[in-house]
């Protein structure tokens, strides 16, 4: 049997103030350390929010796994990411009649969050879990016939120590390699809510 090719990973990175985010710098450096990963810094590409839709669609088509990497501002994404979803995932292209261009691709969120898992539960201050609050992205993926993977979370991102951040970065790189590996199947990830819980060592 022929050896299957590695999955091509695309990280769509959205941060309006990247220069002041230690957590995201850690993740970006980790992503850059993994060969064969494409990272697009969209706030750097489209400071005027005027997204080049055909260009972004072409980039999507060239990859198998899409990662939205962003801070979890107000239980959601930064505005440019919403702009990206609004404009790039066009009707008739990503969803709707004959909209199947992304069908079968994998997609996930990698988020940095101010709170931690204790706050994100029924009796916590945020009342909902990360996974529940990420439902709109899950549903977006579903509508576009994509496979929504477990999320990667960096909790307490504003206070995270260097050692802790190094661990998250290490784990992020592990996740990326796992997703690249031809042997990995989406089924084996179906029951996992967060990549944080998966033992990768």
């Amino acid at each position, binding site marked *: 049997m022929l050896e299957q090719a590695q999955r091509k990973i695309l990280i769509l990175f959205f941060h309006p103030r990247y220069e002041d985010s230690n957590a995201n710098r850690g993740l970006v450096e980790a992503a850059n350390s993994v060969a064969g990963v494409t990272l697009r810094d969209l706030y750097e590409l489209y400071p005027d929010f*005027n997204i080049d839709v055909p260009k972004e669609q072409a980039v999507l088509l060239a990859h198998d796994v899409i990662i939205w990497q962003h801070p979890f501002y107000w239980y959601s994404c930064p505005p440019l990411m919403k702009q990206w979803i609004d404009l790039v995932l066009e009707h008739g292209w990503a969803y709707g009649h004959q909209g199947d261009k992304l069908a079968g691709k994998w997609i996930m969120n990698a988020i940095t969050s101010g709170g931690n898992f204790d706050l994100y539960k029924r009796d916590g201050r945020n009342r909902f879990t990360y996974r529940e609050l990420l439902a709109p992205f899950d549903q977006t993926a579903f509508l576009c016939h994509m496979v929504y993977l477990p999320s990667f979370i960096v909790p307490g991102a504003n206070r995270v120590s260097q050692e802790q951040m190094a661990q998250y970065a290490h784990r992020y790189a592990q996740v990326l390699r796992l997703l690249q590996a031809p042997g990995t199947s989406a089924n084996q990830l179906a029951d996992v809510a967060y990549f944080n819980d998966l033992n990768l060592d």
Partner: protein
Amino acid sequence: MANSVLQNAVILLGAALVFVPIAKRLGIGSVLGYLLGGIVIGPSVLGLIGQESEDIMHATEFGVVMMLFLIGLELNPQAFWKMRKSIVGMGALQMGLTSVLLFPLFYGVFGYPLNVSIAVALSFALSSTAIVLQTLKEKGLDKTQAGQSSFAVLLFQDIAVIPLLALLPLLAVGAASPSDGGHAGHGGPDLGILSDYPSLTILLAVLFIIVLGRFFISPFLVIIARTHMRELFTASALFIVIGVAWVMELAGISAALGAFLAGVLLANSEFRHELESDIEPFKGVLLGLFFTAVGCTIHFETILENPGRIALLVFLVIAIKAGVLLLVGRVFRLVSDQTLLFAFLLSQVGEFAFVLLASTSQLGIIDKGSLDLFMAVVTISMILSSVLLFVNEKFIAPRFGVTEAVADSPAVAISEQNETIIAGFGHFGSTLGRFLRANGVKATILDNDSDRVSLLRKMGFKVFYGDATRLDLLESAGAGKAKILISAIDSPDKNAELADVVQKHFPHLKVFMRAKNRSDAYELMDKGLENIYRESMHSSVFLGVDVLSELGHRKYTSHRKASEFIRYDTEALQRLAKERHTRESYITSVRQEIELQERLLSEDGKFFDQRADGAWERP
């Protein structure tokens, strides 16, 4: 030796082609190049051009007429009106004082008769519009105090030539009857009764030009433009200039002044740029030949007969002129080094002195020998003016007022090395510089306006004063160690020149270029430059956004469309920049501009046909 016309043309043009590039390379200005070329081919050195040099001079004098037409075109009546104070104030003071001081020199010291002294004193009070404007343009000094003041004084002088020409016949009273040896074109036909009332003639002629310019020339040009024949338009442009000049000469007034007036009247016309681009090359060539011819006419025999007298005259005339100009600069409160520049710029005797002297000689006021002597003085003063400017720039100005660098000032540490250099701190550069400063980026500034430089230094900027294209200035400003150079000079030519210097000597610098417009951007792209910013691009598109909003369009959509349009336009610029080389390149810049505009408009069609806007809602 009487040469054929073709032979003369080859010699004159050849001299220009050899000497002007040398002069440019030496940094002494093109005018001096033409003059030196003239001297070399003239009877005294190689003798390639003989006695006909004076005829050539008179023929090419028309370059001066065309130059004034072009000056007029640049100067619409409103601009003219705005400058009236400096024109009349500085101009009158300079002319009045200079002639009053020159008169006793000729009358008392050199013992010329009363009428000769008056005529020559008045003629010598004039400076050379051609040399000064050319110099200002070449050095990028036209927007400085000294540049603006020089322009005002020159305008006054050019206008003053009319009454001066009218005055000269009065001086002929008591002199021998006018000689008949005048040149064709300077006498003109007898106008009967009108010649008895010169002021009436002048009034009528001026009125005629005004009526013509206001009511006839523009409709006439519209008809010509409709034929879509370039050569016809060029022909009409020449027809207008030559026609006006001829009418004015018939009326016995200076042709140059008529052309100037016609230019001012057409300054607001929609054909202004077309006329400019049509006349410009003729003017350039004729003016160059004029200076070459002036170089040829220097009679070294005359100079050798009276070397002491001529040297003394030249020295005193320049000294008196410069002294008066220094005083005028003081009175009108120019800062010290601008006053110096102003004085050196205008210290020579101008081309109108040739015209006035020729007419004086026809009227029999002065004899041939004196005429040759005075002509020599004028020419030598012209040659010296370029040398003096050079001396001023290198040795005198640095000692006064604004110095080039702030090396001695303790306020700014010499060791401070900025990564960014901004050349030109006018409207464009200053906005940019303020923005960078607001974001904590310190830039070293190069500027050639001493007023601005003093102000900026007071505000704590690191500023170098002088022409940003000078290698030594760039070096002392730290171009060798900087990372980024922003070229924000107002003059596109200077910007392009700076780009060349930087590419050659500081290839490590990342260059950001200001471009006036599209065609300017093309030129810069041809040099392989990438970061080119058309200054009007964003303001005009975003003006359009506000207009759309006024027409009821939603602002966010218009903003989105504006960004898309800018992106599209930048791409189109790059595409057309490559294409335009496949098209004929001899067409003049304005024509080319029109053609490109046409290409662009048809290109826009593709942009409109692009995918329908599917953002958020289905159209």
